C-alpha cells in the first residue's frame, strides 16, 4: 500500500534525497570532519606523530568492521564483537608463550567458534540475530570477566615485539583486499546481498540461505579473532574490559559510513573504510581539542544522530522500526 502523502519535493530536498547524494555524503562528511578538525587543532591532527596514533586506532576496528559489514548486509546484527575480541585476545595471549603462529590460529579459531555458536542458534532455531547475540554477548563477556577475575592476562614479550605499523597495515589492507574481492567478484557478494534484500526469494533462486548466514557469522567471528591478534600486539595484556563496547563503536562507524541498517542491495564496500576513519578522526580530534570525556561523548552522539538523519535511506525501510 502507498503513502497517504503526495510529496512534491522542492529541488533541494530532491537532491538531498537522491541516491547519488546519499552515496557521496559519507565521503563529504569525512572530508568536512577532517577539515574542521584540521582547522580547530591548527593542523596538529595532520602531524605525522598524530596520524600514526590515529591510524593505530583504526586497524583492529576496521578488521572487525569487515565481518560486521557482511552480517549487516544480510540484514542481521551482531553484538558480540567486543566480547569475542576479549576472549580471543586472552587465547592469543596465553598461546603466545608457546608459539606465535599457533597464537594467531588460536585467536582466529576462537572467534570462528563463537561466530559458529551465534550462527547456529540464529539459523537452526530461527532466533533473531539481535536476540541471539545479546545472549552470547553476555555469555562471553562473562567468560572474559571470569578468566580475568584475579589478574590481567599478560602476553609474551615475543608477540609484543611484533608491534609495527608495517605488520598492522599489512594485515588490515590484506583483509580489506580479500573481502573486497569476495564481495565484488564472487557469488558470495551476490548471495549476501540477495539474502539481505529478500531472503525467501533468494532461497527460491537457489541461494543456500542458511549456509550463507551461518558462514557469515563464522567469518565475522574469525575476523574478530584475527583482530584480537592485532589488539594483543598493541596492548600487551588483557583485562576484563578488553574490547568493551566494540560492537557499539562498530555499529556507529558503519552507520556513519552510510551502511543502510536494513542491509541488502544498497550497501557499499566503502562504507567500512569511510565509517571507521570518520569515527576515529572524530574521536581523536575531540581528545586533542581537550574536551572532557562527557563533552566528547555528547558531541559524538549529536554528530551521529545528525548524520544518520541525513544519510538514511527511508525508501528501503518500508516501515521504520
Amino acid at each position, binding site marked *: 500500500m502507498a503513502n497517504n502523502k503526495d510529496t512534491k519535493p522542492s529541488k533541494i530536498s530532491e537532491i538531498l534525497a537522491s541516491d547519488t547524494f546519499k552515496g557521496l555524503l559519507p565521503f563529504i562528511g569525512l572530508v568536512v570532519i577532517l577539515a574542521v578538525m584540521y582547522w580547530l587543532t591548527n593542523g596538529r591532527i595532520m602531524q605525522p606523530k598524530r596520524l600514526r596514533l590515529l591510524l593505530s586506532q583504526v586497524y583492529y576496528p576496521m578488521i572487525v568492521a569487515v565481518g560486521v559489514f557482511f552480517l549487516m548486509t544480510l*540484514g542481521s546484527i551482531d553484538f558480540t564483537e567486543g566480547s569475542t575480541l576479549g576472549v580471543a585476545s586472552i587465547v592469543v595471549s596465553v598461546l603466545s608463550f608457546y608459539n606465535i603462529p599457533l597464537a594467531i590460529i588460536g585467536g582466529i579459531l576462537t572467534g570462528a567458534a563463537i561466530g559458529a555458536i551465534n550462527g547456529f542458534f540464529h539459523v537452526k532455531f*530461527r532466533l*533473531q*540475530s*539481535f536476540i541471539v547475540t545479546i545472549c*552470547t554477548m*553476555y555469555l562471553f563477556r562473562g567468560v572474559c570477566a571470569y578468566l580475568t577475575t584475579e589478574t590481567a592476562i599478560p602476553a609474551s614479550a615475543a608477540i609484543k615485539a611484533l608491534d609495527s605499523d608495517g605488520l598492522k597495515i599489512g594485515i588490515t589492507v590484506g583483509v580489506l583486499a580479500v573481502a573486497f574481492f569476495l564481495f565484488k567478484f564472487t557469488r558470495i557478494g551476490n548471495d549476501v546481498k540477495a539474502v539481505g534484500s529478500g531472503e525467501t526469494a533468494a532461497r527460491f533462486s537457489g541461494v543456500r540461505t542458511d549456509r550463507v548466514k551461518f558462514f557469515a557469522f563464522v567469518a565475522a567471528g574469525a575476523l574478530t579473532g584475527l583482530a584480537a591478534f592485532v589488539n594483543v600486539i598493541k596492548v600487551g595484556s588483557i583485562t576484563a574490559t578488553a574490547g568493551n563496547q566494540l560492537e*557499539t563503536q562498530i555499529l556507529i562507524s558503519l552507520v556513519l559510513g552510510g551502511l543502510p541498517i536494513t542491509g541488502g542491495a544498497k550497501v557499499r564496500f566503502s562504507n567500512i573504510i569511510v565509517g571507521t576513519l570518520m569515527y576515529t578522526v572524530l574521536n581523536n580530534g575531540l581528545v586533542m581539542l581537550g574536551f572532557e570525556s*562527557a563533552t566528547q561523548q555528547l558531541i559524538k552522539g549529536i554528530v551521529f*544522530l545528525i548524520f544518520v538523519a541525513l544519510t538514511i535511506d527511508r525508501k528501503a525501510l518500508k516501515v521504520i522500526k
Partner: protein
Amino acid sequence: MQNFKNSKLFGFMILGAMVLFFYGLFKFLTPTNFGSPANLFSYFQSSIIYSVGGCGLYFIVVMGLFDFAVGANIVLSSIVGVILSEKLGYIGFIIGCLGCGTLIGILIGFLYNKLNVPSMIVTVGLMLVFESLAVFVAGGVKQTLAPELRFFSGAPGNIILAALAFALMWFILNYTRIGTYCNAIGSNEFTAKNMGIDVKKYKLIGFALLHFFVGIMAILTVSYGTTMTALTGMSTMSRNFQPLMGTFFGVAFRKYGNPISAIVIGEFIIAIIFNGFVALGAPTTIQNVVTGAALLIIVTLTARGSRGSVVK
C-alpha cells in the same frame, strides 16, 4: 473451542514448571545455602526491579521497536531524583525520577518520529547523549540517597511500588486502547494506519510509557543500591538487557494471554539461576555467563521461529 494448548493456564503451567525445575536443581545441588524462603524472597526483590523495566519495554518491543537508552535513563533519572530529594524529600525523589524518566521518553519518541530513523539507531545516539547529560547533572560526583529516604529499598516499599507498576501495566493493556493499538502497530503498521490509528502518536505514547516505567525502575534501583555514579563510555549499555530478558518472556508468552505474569516470573527465574550459581560458589564474575546462557536456552525454547520464516 479454544485449544487448551493456547490457554492462559497452559502458559502458567510452563512458567511454573520452569521455576520448579531451576529451584529443584539448585536446591538439590546446594541444599544448605540456596533457596530458603528468606533467600527466595530476596531473589524476588532483586528481580522485580527488572520486571518493572521489562513491563515498560513490552510496549516498545511489541511494536517492533527497540530502545538502547533505557540504561542511560535509569542512571540519569535516578541522579535527578536523588538531587531533587535533597531539597524536597520523597516528593522530589519520586517526581524527579518519574518526571525525568517520562520527559526523556517523550524526547526519544519525539526525535524518533521527527528524524524518521530506526529506533535502534536513534536510541544508540541518544544513549551517548544521556550518559553525558547524567555526568553533567551529577557534576562528576557519586550521588547518594539520604538514609531517611529509603522506604523503597526493601520490603514492603519496593514490593508495593512494583505491584503498583504491574497493576498499571495490566490496566493499560486490558482496559485502554493503548495495548490494542500497540499490538496492531506491531502486527501491520500500514493496516493500523488505515484503520485511523495515529501511529506516530502511539509510538510516542509507547516511548513515554516505557520511560515512565524506567522512572519507577530508577526509584527502585537507586533505593536498592543507595548510590548512583554517572559514567560515560557506553557503560549503561548492560543495564538495558536485564529488563529486556523479562520482555522476551512476555512476548514469548503473549499468545497465552498474559504477558505481565510472564515478565515477572521470567525475571524471577533468571534471579534463581544466578543466585543458584553464586550459592554453588561461582564467583560473581560468572553472573553474565549464567544470565547469557540461561537466556539463550530460554529464547531457544520459547521464541524460535517456524521453518522457512525469514528471521534477521
